[in-house]
């Protein structure tokens, strides 16, 4: 994804958290938020249409949780970069998320600087 536009989808059932992430990413060069979704099921549908490069993914959501959504997305697009942003802050959950195919895990609460740093590293392929 180096030196190209990175298209991001934000998935979180909290509208204020989506807004916080969107604002944080707006300060980053070559990063564009293309969609926001409030649950995993909707996110999978939108993902199929828009094919974003990177997804920020909450885990505890109605209808389909983040683990289910990650599994669906990875099966459709194995190269998608998924960054989990979750209040389930224990190590076992983070390792489960990585096992499901996520490339990074950010524990809530996080600052704008923290989410930007993680996204920057993922975009840079670190």
């Amino acid at each position, binding site marked *: 994804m180096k030196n190209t536009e990175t298209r991001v989808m934000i998935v979180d059932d909290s509208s*204020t958290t989506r807004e916080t992430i969107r604002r944080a990413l707006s300060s980053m060069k070559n990063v564009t938020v293309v969609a926001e979704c409030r649950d995993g099921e909707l996110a999978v549908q939108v993902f199929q249409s828009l094919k974003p490069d990177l997804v920020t993914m909450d885990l505890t959501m109605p209808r389909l949780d983040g683990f289910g959504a990650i599994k669906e997305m990875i099966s459709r697009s194995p190269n998608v970069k998924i960054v989990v942003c979750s209040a*389930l*802050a*224990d190590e*076992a959950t983070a390792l489960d998320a990585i096992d499901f195919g996520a490339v990074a895990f950010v524990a809530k609460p996080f600052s704008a600087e923290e989410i930007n740093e993680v996204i920057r590293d993922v975009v840079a392929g670190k």
Partner: protein
Amino acid sequence: MKLSESTLKTIAQSIESYFIKKKIGKSQIHHAYLGAIGEAPTIEFSALIPIYGSYNGAVYLTTSKGFVEKVLGEQGLGFSEDNMLDIVGEMANIFAGNIRLDLGEGFSIMPPVLISGKEMVLKFEVKDQPYIMPIYLDEDIANLVIIFEKT
């Protein structure tokens, strides 16, 4: 269920961390006290996180309007009722989720149930006294209510 000092400390640290990372300012977290068996009153904007897995019960945050306006205002977010309930739900989600750091994977949480209304009393199936942890931002108050038992 009696909570250990370690669990109560984890919860208090999680609350403190939220206000520091969101640059909201200094919060004052008071020692938890025990409420009436199986129930807890609302203040105004509330969110309940159902707990399942190895535990049964809820973690629930209830705040005054002034408290939630401070939280939204410091993050540059609008004061709509939707935003007020949403941010209370997200704070409750974070405080409950962080309890897993102490209690492990068996402490599973569901998405928040958002409740708007003053001076209601929520009744819980858990026949135990809830822990009520007051949180202050200046003079504005919120209560984090923790009530669960092992299944």
